[in-house]
């Protein structure tokens, strides 16, 4: 009798185990097909998509959790964590970990991924003129971009800390972080705009003319300095980030130490180098690596401003060009792997830091 009940229960569990995931897949698959084939007005489409996205994810967790609750106790405890981390692990595995390995594999194949070519893609990346230009420009970006962001960020943070309008100043410097590189691209393209033989409506050329200079086509003619004009955009956008973090770090420097140094007769500049800098060196390092990682992958600015022409190509735009315009998956993958190799030191530092914190 009891055996029968347990058997029934087992069958029910088995059925549910198949049914619940299958139902989830079927329902969301159908909704997906509905969205793909329907031509609703934009607003309605957006509204329904938002509802589906938010409610869908909740219902998936809810139903899977309910399924696990049906299992006997020890199993419940064993399975539940995997329901919780499951979707994250599946998505990361499918869309980040596996692709990285596949890209690595593709980087050893030829342009249409049919033939093994060994390291010849890597050789090409470091010898082909266009690709070498991209690498050189990326170095320019990383060096000048990071240097300018970090030093300006620190300077502004210190000035703001001593000024009488700290909040306002920080908001102004920080604001460009919120907007997109595409919009920032339009803003700066307008500033660098050049009209031959006419009144200059671009700010930079107007200033140059006002001081008696010759207007220039800044983005195309003055190579390789045009890279610096693009880097200015990054500095305009990312200095706010460095500043906010430095500002928080500066406030954590104990006032007593600085006051003591002042009483001993140390000047402000000496206090800055001998007390402030050592105190916030960890933060400086963290901000620097963050901006370096960010700059390595720079893409949008270059794409919008010049499309990589006039010798402004960087690795990420060259990646896009090789992959999607020249259909060369071999070069494309290799460039992506070059980017990955460049951030590996950061990954190692992160992991070390994480181990040291011992929170795990």
């Amino acid at each position, binding site marked *: 009798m009891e055996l029968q009940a347990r058997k029934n229960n087992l069958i029910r569990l088995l059925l549910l185990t198949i049914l619940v995931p299958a139902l989830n897949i079927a329902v969301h698959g159908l909704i997906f097909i509905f969205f793909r084939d329907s031509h609703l007005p934009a607003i309605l489409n*957006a509204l329904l998509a*938002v509802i589906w*996205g*938010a409610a869908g*994810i909740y219902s998936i967790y*809810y139903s899977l*959790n309910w399924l696990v*609750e049906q299992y006997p106790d020890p199993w419940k405890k*064993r399975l*539940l*964590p995997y329901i919780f981390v499951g979707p*994250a692990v599946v*998505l*990361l595995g499918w*869309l*980040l*970990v596996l*692709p*990285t390995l596949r890209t690595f594999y*593709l980087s050893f194949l030829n342009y249409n991924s049919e033939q093994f070519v060994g390291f010849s893609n890597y050789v090409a990346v470091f010898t082909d003129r266009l690709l070498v230009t991209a690498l050189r420009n990326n170095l320019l970006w990383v060096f000048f971009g990071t240097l300018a962001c970090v030093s300006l960020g620190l300077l*502004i943070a210190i000035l703001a800390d*001593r000024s*009488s309008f700290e909040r*306002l*100043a920080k*908001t*102004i*410097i*920080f604001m*460009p972080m*919120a*907007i*997109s590189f*595409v*919009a920032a*691209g339009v803003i700066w393209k*307008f500033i660098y705009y050049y009209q031959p033989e006419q*009144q200059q*409506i671009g*700010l930079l050329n*107007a200033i140059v003319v006002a001081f008696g200079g010759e207007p220039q086509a800044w983005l195309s003619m003055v190579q390789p300095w045009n890279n610096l004009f693009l880097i200015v955009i990054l500095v305009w956008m990312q200095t706010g*980030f460095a500043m906010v*973090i430095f500002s*928080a770090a500066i406030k954590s420097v104990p006032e007593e130490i600085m006051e003591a140094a002042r009483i001993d007769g140390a000047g402000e500049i000496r206090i800055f180098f001998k007390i402030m800098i050592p105190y916030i060196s960890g933060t400086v390092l963290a901000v620097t690596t963050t901006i370096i990682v960010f700059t*390595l*992958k720079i*893409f*949008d600015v270059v*794409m919008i401003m010049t499309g990589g022409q006039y010798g402004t190509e960087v690795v*990420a735009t060259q990646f896009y060009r090789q*992959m999607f315009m020249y259909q060369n998956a071999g070069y*494309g993958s290799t*460039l*992506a792997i070059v980017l990955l190799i460049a*951030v590996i030191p*950061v*990954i190692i530092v*992160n992991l070390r830091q994480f181990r040291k914190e011992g*929170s*795990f």
Partner: protein
Amino acid sequence: MRPHSRKRKSKWLVNSILALICFVWLVPTFGLFVSSIRPAADIMQTGWWKVFPHRAWQTVDQVELPKETDLRTPILVQGEAYSDNQLRTGVNVENERLIWENRRARIINVQQKEWTAITNFSTLNYETVLGGKSYKISLPGGGVKTEKGTGMSRSFWNTLAVTIPATVIPIFIASFAAYAFAWLRFPGRRTLFVTIIALLVVPLQVALIPILRDYTSLGLNGTYFGIWLAHTAFGLPLITYFMYNAISQLPKDLFESAFMDGATNFTIFSRLILPLTVPALASISIFQFLWVWNDYLVALIFLGSLPDVQVLSMNIANLVGSRGNDWHLLTAAAFISMLMPLAVFFALQKYFVRGLLGGSVKG
């Protein structure tokens, strides 16, 4: 007395340097905004700063020459002879300037420098950019050109349809995972979490080609669902890490007493954890929201530029490509795309900054 005045002087110096920097920082955005509300003809003829009072040549008088005046010989105006070329570029006589108003009708402007400001403003640029109708624009030469709108309002809604789920979904998934990593013990926990830390700074370019191939075979290219999944995966490492930090800091007693009361993990999570981590959720939501809203690369590769699904950044990038010199359109379009981020930024600045301080390395 002296140290005090020195301090005041240094404060004055600090304030003025900072004010100068702030001014430089503001000018680009301000110039964009001013340009976006100026008529197309004005934008192409004068710099946007001319909306401020400045001194410029203003016509105070006109001279009409006899119709039969020969332009190839020196032209007599007010008793002096000038060449045609001189009159084209304008010739200065004392504090006046002579310049052709209409060469064919033989009319010459007599101009003087006067204080002026060009203050024609209109919302026509915005209407053109947002709507799909055709609009008439008067050109500097006096002609009229018809221009088709760029249908940006559709892109605006598409961007919302991409951004909101691409914010909600990863935050949901990451919070569940973060809860499990912080408070449940299971085999593989450490390995999985270390992998996520390692993925924090992996450049997403590394993943694009294989994902694109999968998407092509699954029919996910150019669909909202596909781009939600992509943004979810790219955002997950940072959000999981961020939420882990927030959730693992909650006091242990909280969970113990909830378990005593017979609550399941799911109820603890949705009734206890989520409400308690609202500030962290707000911070990371803003981040993910802005990141997706401002994204160009992922949309370019997985969503494409069909008008049905095209997002704002794609729309503007296409405008830059096809109408690169139509500044009346570009400036208005860029400003529209900035409205949402700026609104979020000013309304929720506190959370935004907190999110930054909590971790901001993203792949």
